[in-house]
């Protein structure tokens, strides 16, 4: 029992998932259910000159057709919930259904509700809309230039904000430095591609005035909050349920106009309405990630010391400011430019730019992979310019272990760290020296072998609420738990976070089991329903275990303390004379006196004999607000062979050494790393959302957007170091995003290393065969 914390037990959520008995949103069946479908704009940017819904309204099975005119005055707009300070953020109105203009290909224009899915779909084709096309521009750098089409009348020039951060004196340092390198980096648009598309089932009871909304959400309480604004319905009349959720990766954080429109329809009709997006709809209308054009520079000394970094970033916001959109390229990006290094001089400028593309919001890692990528690309480029080994440069510049907690030039304070051992372990696992010998040999035979290192830190475990407020995040970042013990000694734990694959039904049960000395089978973790769970802020930003898990632990400790009072009373002993055996309270050194957790659960719940002043029942709640973010770190190393003729990249080995503090369940931690790494490799090698000049998403299906397949991806080798965080009682650092943070950088660094003999210093990801071949051709001076 003593080892349940730290044990790789099987997941408790799995039996229902592997037998098809789990309920995802689209599985929700209700009497009288109607089905909704959206008519979406085929143009990226156009004025709507006519909408005629008469034929659709007359079509078989159609219950209602709504356009912006029907919502007028009855609903609000889609809110943006992150307003970073001191950047003059402009948030233009984002209507639930487009009224006068459409601003991206996929913007919703009308909603059809019909008796069946097929009838709703059929009726969409009967709505007649005339558009007057206006200019489109999806590239954030180009959209920021004079003369670009303007997408919002109240945002002339399309610049939604200009944000800066830094420390030291970068301008002076770049004057003084001996070695300077610069890169132009494009961090392409990515499609999050949770395999479960988004879905919403809204059921409004006109009698009670209550709306119940099942929705694919990573954060039902945030959804409740934002839906109340969109629907002008008080929050206490909304119950949001995130049932089983089939992956999110950030894309199910935002409140979308879709669930508001579906809820509106249910409120109008007084019957339940279901909508589930198609994949092609998902690719057009669910948020995208990344989308930066970056001009970045690094400087330092010939001995390999890095002294400065600066950047100008054009970060696409897309057509509208999504829920967390503006916070990602700023707070979650600019503040971590120091990476794992001591860099005294940092200057970051980020322009958030409205474009005519799908809105950009959080995608796994959200801002931090972009930062890690540019920092690690720069470190490699700098090392090459300084004539130093890239591993040695990293070692030289790592923040030393004894300096933690350490405040970097951007002003954030890293909680704890010991970066060298992770790098050394990764290099040893991959046999760095041996590879370098093999590489030298291969080069003599005209083969392109490369090795890439990525060392990272990330800022996660979001985070202190006070900081959330200070950085303009329109929510709290504490989390919560209620631990409720039943008379028979079994336990339900209600949590504010909303896991959707990360396994907290298991890890949190392990935390509680460890506290109470009971089997995990006696504990159920309840999440995802605002009706039963305490206020929390959801699952994203690798925060669930660090923040909500801590609340679980504290609530469990409170329960245990109450049990101790009762035990002392029953044993007629002083509380101070009791000791916890691991499964029971007993008088110190007197095993025969043990009151097991089960005994005390019964005693508390029947309340026949409680100490004076102690209320019946055995439950406690806790709201945990951490004192700081957590900063996981690690080093990933990747070896590749590049086919110089076809441009194909083959990953030979991929080694990830991560430090996310102690592991409550090491198997689950490893699984999180595996998945994160493969997402990063997909980003490095094959994933890109391609738009044409007219703002059409050309990679609009899985036929053209290359989600990594089993046959394409390498085995991922994992190892760990363990450095506890001092900022939460579990000491954990979060592992959900860790795998993704630096994996793209490691892969691209490896490919550039392979091609270095040709003089290639950078290739923009994704490193598709065509791009790699083109870079080789250009380097060889071949005709392109």
């Amino acid at each position, binding site marked *: 029992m003593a080892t349940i914390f730290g044990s790789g037990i099987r*997941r408790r959520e799995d039996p229902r998932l*592997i037998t098809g*008995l789990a309920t995802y949103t689209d599985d929700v069946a209700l009497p009288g259910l109607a089905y909704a479908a959206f008519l979406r704009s085929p143009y990226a940017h156009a004025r709507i000159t006519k909408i005629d819904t008469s034929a659709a309204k007359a079509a078989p099975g159609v219950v209602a057709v709504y356009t912006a005119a029907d919502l007028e005055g009855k609903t609000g707009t889609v809110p943006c919930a992150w307003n970073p300070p001191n950047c003059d953020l402009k948030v233009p109105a984002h209507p639930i259904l487009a009224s006068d203009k459409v601003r991206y290909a996929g913007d919703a224009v009308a909603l059809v509700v019909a008796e069946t899915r097929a009838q709703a779909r059929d009726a969409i084709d009967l709505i007649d809309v005339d558009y007057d096309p206006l200019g489109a521009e999806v590239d954030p750098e180009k959209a920021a230039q004079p003369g670009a089409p303007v997408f919002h009348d109240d945002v002339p020039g399309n610049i939604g904000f200009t944000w800066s951060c830094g420390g030291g004196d970068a301008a002076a340092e770049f004057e003084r430095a001996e070695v300077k390198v610069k890169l132009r980096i494009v961090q392409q648009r990515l499609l999050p591609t949770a*395999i479960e598309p988004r879905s919403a089932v809204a059921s409004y009871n006109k009698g009670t005035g209550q709306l119940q909304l099942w929705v694919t959400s990573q954060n039902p309480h945030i959804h409740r909050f934002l839906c109340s604004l969109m629907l002008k319905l008080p929050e206490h009349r909304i119950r949001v349920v995130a049932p089983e959720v089939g992956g999110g990766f950030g894309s199910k954080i935002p409140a979308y106009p879709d669930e508001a429109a579906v809820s509106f329809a249910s409120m109008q009709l007084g019957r339940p309405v279901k909508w589930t997006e198609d994949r092609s709809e998902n690719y057009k209308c669910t948020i995208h990630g990344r989308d930066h054009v970056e001009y970045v520079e690094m400087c330092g000394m010939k001995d390999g010391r890095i002294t400065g970094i600066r950047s100008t970033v054009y970060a696409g916001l897309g057509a509208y400011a999504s829920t967390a959109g503006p916070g990602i390229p700023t707070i979650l990006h600019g503040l971590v430019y120091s990476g794992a290094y001591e860099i005294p001089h940092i200057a970051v400028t980020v322009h958030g730019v409205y474009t005519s593309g799908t809105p950009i919001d959080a995608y796994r890692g959200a801002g931090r992979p972009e930062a890690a990528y540019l920092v690690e690309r720069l470190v490699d480029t700098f090392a090459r310019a300084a004539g130093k080994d890239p591993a040695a440069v990293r070692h030289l510049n790592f923040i030393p272990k004894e300096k933690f907690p350490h405040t970097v030039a951007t002003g954030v304070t890293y909680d704890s760290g010991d970066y060298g051992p992770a790098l050394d372990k990764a290099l040893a696992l991959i046999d760095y020296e041996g590879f370098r010998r093999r590489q030298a040999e291969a080069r003599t035979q005209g083969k392109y072998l490369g090795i890439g290192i990525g060392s990272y830190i990330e800022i996660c475990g979001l985070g202190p609420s006070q900081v959330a407020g200070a950085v303009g995040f329109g929510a709290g970042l504490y989390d919560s738990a209620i631990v409720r013990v039943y008379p028979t000694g079994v336990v339900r734990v209600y949590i504010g976070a909303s896991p959707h694959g990360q396994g907290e039904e298991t890890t949190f049960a392990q935390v509680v089991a460890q506290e109470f000395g009971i089997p995990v089978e006696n504990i159920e973790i309840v999440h995802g329903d605002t009706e039963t769970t305490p206020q929390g802020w959801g699952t994203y930003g690798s925060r669930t275990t660090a923040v909500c898990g801590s609340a679980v632990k504290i609530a469990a400790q409170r329960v245990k303390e109450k049990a101790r009072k009762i035990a002392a009373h029953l044993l007629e002993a002083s509380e101070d004379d009791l000791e916890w055996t691991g499964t029971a309270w007993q008088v110190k050194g007197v095993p025969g006196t043990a009151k097991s957790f089960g005994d005390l659960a019964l005693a508390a719940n029947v309340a026949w004999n409680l100490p004076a002043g102690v209320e019946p029942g055995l439950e406690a709640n806790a709201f945990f607000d951490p004192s700081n973010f957590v900063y996981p770190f690690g080093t990933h190393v990747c070896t590749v062979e590049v086919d110089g003729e076809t441009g194909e990249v083959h990953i030979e080995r991929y080694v990830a050494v991560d430090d996310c503090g102690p592991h409550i369940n090491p198997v689950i931690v490893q699984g999180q790393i595996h998945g994160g790494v*493969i997402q990063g490799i997909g980003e490095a090698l094959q994933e890109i959302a391609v738009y044409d000049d007219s703002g059409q998403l050309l990679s609009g*299906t899985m036929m053209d957007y290359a989600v990594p397949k089993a046959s394409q991806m390498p085995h991922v080798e994992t190892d760990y170091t363990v450095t506890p965080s001092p900022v939460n009682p579990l000491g954990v650092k979060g592992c959900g995003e860790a795998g993704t943070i630096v994996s793209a950088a490691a892969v691209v660094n490896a490919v550039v290393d392979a091609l270095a003999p040709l003089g290639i210093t950078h290739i923009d990801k994704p490193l598709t065969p065509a791009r790699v071949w083109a870079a080789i051709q250009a380097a060889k001076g071949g005709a392109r």
Partner: protein
Amino acid sequence: MKRPVTLQVNGAARTVEVEPRALLVHVLRDELHLTGTHVGCDTSQCGACTVLIDGHAVKSCTTLAVQAEGSAITTIEGLGSPDALHPLQQAFWDKHGLQCGFCTPGVIMTATDLLERNPDPSDEEIRHALEGNYCRCTGYVNIVAAVKAAAATLRAARAAA
């Protein structure tokens, strides 16, 4: 223009009135309430909708229910239950071969087909066999481990039989 279609679903004859255009996946989910089979794409790529038709893994989003008339359909619900897991289901649980679980039923159905054809697949053969089943959570590492483990279990069972 609905018409009756009879399918042998998980061992039982089921007759449903459907339009010819009804996709098998929609009939399974909406008419027969077998919601373990999922829809993840439009283009026959992701494999979340994979079921067995007459023992062969098929994407039920690219099959009309009328095409499957008279065929034996096996869905994840028919493979095993929490009390009686199929060796593949057991192995996915044991090896942490799933996270959000959305793709998992389809992956397991395809793996069932693989292990019928090839009782002792290599890692590479497993990865090739699963290229029509996308998983965004696991990075496939533990899926491969799970299929290998299930293959071993099934081989042992066959040897014992």
